């Protein structure tokens, strides 16, 4: 549980952030660069000092300007994974990992973390011989071994290329799922949020624009300028219902509907989060039957809104809310209006692997007891 309510003036820029993070899971701080995300987590870590306000983590006051409390960074027990990598160059990987360990820690914990992050073969190497992905894994291990109650990650994937990102993502998921480590995750990449986050904090110009569940915030049209254009779309929580390997499809259930997607090797019963991009959704007034599109959902238009570029966003309630982007011409031709019955059409292959998000359900049982 994180409670933040701080103010900090930096020249012309004023950071004014107040939010309460959920218990456990991953809280994503999302916003463009310059929105104040890094400054905010530096303040959480004690590396930067707010002008006013309060920071409370798990009931412990870390900063309170009014009460004159400002705990030193080393007393806060918050692990920090830096964007650009900050391994100590004069120490081996092993010594880097051990830097934050207390003397009474057992070797078991060291071995556990090394195995979890798969960094055993790197132990005797020097940091400058590691690849970007390896460095990031060692950095995560080092932070974990200092026994933090919360992990702060400042765009841990931002400096990595595509394949390296894919290499690190599963490890971050393991922290969340196997160690139940609460994480504050700073990013400007929507696909990382869909894959990882539980709670989303959207920041803009030093202010918190919205706080809530990822699914909820992503379906709000008013946040669209902040959540991104090209990649925008609805985020749904679904359950794997079944596979048809012969026809290479997987069925996902949500709110009484079934969504067909290309075959994905995920166990039946698993909860998933998926993203259906607005540009992959078409609308029809009647249900077409001679069409290749497999997903045809009857629903009702909830909201239509203009975009700056002349295209329009239409939100359709099909049980869950799906978001379609169409041209103004299409809206006029179908005479779309809120309340109308329509069919939302989603191409199965539009839901690719990258649209498949985090596995939910593991954290839903709640209690984030640290392993």
């Amino acid at each position, binding site marked *: 549980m994180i409670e933040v309510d701080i103010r900090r003036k930096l020249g012309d820029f004023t950071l004014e952030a107040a939010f309460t993070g959920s218990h456990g899971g991953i809280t994503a701080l999302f916003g463009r660069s310059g929105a104040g995300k890094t400054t905010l987590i530096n303040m959480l870590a*004690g590396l930067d000092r707010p002008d006013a306000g309060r920071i409370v983590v798990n009931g412990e006051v870390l900063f309170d300007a009014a009460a004159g409390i400002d705990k030193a960074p*080393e007393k806060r027990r918050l*692990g*920090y994974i830096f964007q650009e990598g*900050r391994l*100590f*160059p004069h120490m081996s990987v092993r010594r880097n990992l051990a830097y934050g360990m207390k003397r009474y820690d057992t070797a078991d914990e060291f071995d556990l973390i090394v195995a979890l992050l798969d960094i055993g073969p790197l132990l005797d190497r020097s940091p400058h011989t590691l690849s970007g992905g390896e460095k990031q894994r060692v950095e995560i291990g*080092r932070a974990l071994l200092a026994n933090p109650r919360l992990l702060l990650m400042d765009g841990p994937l931002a400096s990595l290329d595509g394949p390296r990102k894919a290499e690190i993502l599963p490890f971050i998921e393991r922290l969340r799922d196997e160690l139940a480590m609460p994480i504050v995750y700073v990013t400007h990449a929507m696909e990382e949020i869909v894959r990882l986050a539980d709670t989303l904090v959207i920041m803009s110009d030093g202010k918190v624009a919205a706080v809530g569940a990822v699914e909820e915030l992503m379906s709000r049209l008013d946040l669209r300028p902040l959540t991104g254009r090209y990649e925008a779309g609805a985020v749904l929580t679904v359950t794997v219902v079944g596979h048809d390997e012969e026809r290479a499809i997987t069925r996902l259930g949500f709110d009484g509907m079934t969504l067909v997607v290309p075959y994905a090797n995920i166990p039946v019963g698993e909860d998933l989060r998926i993203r259906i991009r607005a540009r992959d959704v078409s609308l029809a007034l009647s249900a077409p039957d001679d069409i290749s599109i497999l997903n045809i959902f009857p629903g009702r238009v909830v909201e239509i809104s203009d975009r700056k570029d002349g295209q329009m966003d239409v939100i359709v309630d099909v049980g869950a809310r799906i978001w379609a982007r169409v041209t103004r011409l299409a809206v006029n031709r179908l005479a779309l209006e809120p309340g109308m019955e329509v069919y939302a059409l989603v191409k199965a292959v539009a839901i690719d692997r990258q649209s498949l998000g985090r596995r939910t359900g593991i954290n839903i049982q709640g209690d984030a007891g640290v392993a």
Partner: protein
Amino acid sequence: MDWFTPLEIEALGLSLRVAVVSVICSLPFGLAAAWLLARRSFPGKSLVDGVIHLPLVVPPVVVGYVLLVALGRRGVIGGWLYDSFGVTIAFTWKGAAIAAAVMAFPLMVRAMRLSLEAVDRRLEAAARTLGAGKARVFVTITLPLMAPGILAGVVLAFARALGEFGATITFVSNIPGETRTLPIALYTLTQTPDGEAAAARLAVISVGLALAAIVASEWIARRMARRLGGGA
């Protein structure tokens, strides 16, 4: 040891002792000054910076004279030292070490300050988030990362101390076996009839000593660089 004459051994031994003692004793002050100048801002900082660099620009004789006035037996500090503890500094090898330390101090501080300014403070911040207090961060992160600069400062100061002449001869004079270091012995020989050959030998010894110090420091610096990640 038949290679050297007793006079050479005496001068060489004294020079090494003076240089080693002056460097070791000024090292903590040099570190403190470097830290103050690199990391702190306080009123009068440029004045402190100027005073530290003064021995680099004023004539060494002036430094020696100031030391004599301050630390001589009738000097402000020297008198108090003699009256309270019976310690005499002027005209002893200890005085020579102090003169060498003062003259070498700016070089030492300069090298250390530059290396301290080059230490990535983000690494120090990372160490603190891992639970290390300020003192531990300084010992385990800052000092090792500025080690090449400390080494450079030490070598420069050592070489400067070996060659110290003006301030030394002014402050502690030219006493055989007590304050007659290599350069002073060399100077004395040039003033002596038939001293040319012995002077030439001393000059060769001085050059050899300086060369050895530089080669040794290069070797250590390369090893450090390798540990710090192949250069940088």
